[in-house]
């Protein structure tokens, strides 16, 4: 507000606008001098602030600039901190939204793996059972004739002399 007033110094002549409000008492022309007295009262105060910029006024503006600068810096720091510490949430949603089909397929694959894992408990046991039932087959199929041959060798004709 104050800055705008400062820049609008040349607009001071517009202040006499209240004059048209005066015509209310048209029958008495001599009275107008009363109204002009009220009008000049306002311009007198404004020049006191604008046309005479004291050193105190300059300090006030400088402080204003400093405050604005500080605010800008704080905002900049805040924005920077936001991107630094909250950068992931800002990126992830963009990625998720970009490849939703891929995510769905991935979930489906995960489900398939989960269900397959459950089924494999029984299918793996079935495969293992095939080996279990074969245990010692080789020994069963081995020839037991050795014991019989031993009987035959007990009376060998080559030893009869």
């Amino acid at each position, binding site marked *: 507000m104050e800055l705008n007033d400062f820049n609008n110094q040349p607009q001071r002549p517009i202040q006499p606008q209240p004059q048209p409000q005066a015509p209310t008492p048209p029958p008495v022309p001599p009275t107008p001098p009363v109204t002009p007295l009220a009008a000049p009262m306002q311009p007198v105060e404004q020049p006191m602030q604008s046309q005479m910029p004291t050193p105190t006024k300059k300090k006030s503006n400088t402080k204003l600039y400093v405050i604005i600068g500080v605010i800008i810096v704080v905002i900049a720091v805040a924005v920077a901190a936001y991107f630094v510490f909250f950068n992931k949430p800002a990126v992830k949603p963009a990625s998720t939204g970009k490849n939703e089909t891929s995510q769905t397929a991935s979930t489906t694959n995960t489900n398939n793996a989960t269900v397959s894992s459950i089924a494999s408990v*029984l299918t793996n046991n079935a495969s293992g059972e095939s080996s279990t039932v074969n245990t010692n087959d080789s020994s069963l199929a081995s020839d037991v004739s050795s014991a019989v041959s031993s009987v035959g060798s007990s009376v060998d004709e080559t030893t009869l002399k």
Partner: protein
Amino acid sequence: MKQLLSKIVATIALGSALIIYTVSPVFAVTSTSSSTSAMCVHVATLQSTKEAAMDVRITTMQSNFAARLAKIASDEAAIDAKVAADRANAAQQFESKIQTLESKTGLTDSQKQAIVSFSTSMQQAEKTREAAVDSARATYRSALSSTVTTHQQTLTSAVSTYKAAVESAFTTASTSCISEPSTTMSALQAAVKTAHDTLNSAITTAAIKTEIQQLAATRDAAVTAANNSFISSAKAFTATLTAALGSTNP
């Protein structure tokens, strides 16, 4: 007097001649009997030692047969225990995983029902598989027992035949050693060789190795078929449940 003296001398000479004639054959017979007796003693000794050894071997063979049958029974019991334990363990793990899946949040009613259907179908297919496998194993075992028992009976019979032939050969030798001692041993050896060859032929003919392998191959084929059928069904059940779960993330 001279005539009397001549008669006495003649009588003595005749008596001596008679004595010599009589004694001489006795010496000859005694020499032949000694040779015959030695052969018979040798045959008797062989018969005693060899038949004793044969009896020991036959006893060992019978123990071997019994041990073989016992080992088959022991192996089958061990296999049964392992199969039962593995099946129980697999069933427990399966049930646990099903419960874990069912406990996931976000499942719809239809998805929960799909899980139940999957579990039921898998368990039913597993029972079918187990029944087929058990049937194949039972068939194999029955045939194996029959084959081994028959084999042992065949071999026992062959051994009995061999033993009888050997004993007969020794009996013949114990007789021939008196009348024909020079050919006794060769005849005994020939008879024993014949018995031995007959026994070896019986052993070769009765070999059951190939037969047992064929029984095992038949069993394995049945087990493989049952397992493949189960695995195929499991894949179908898996696909159905996966489709039911869809893109949800249970």
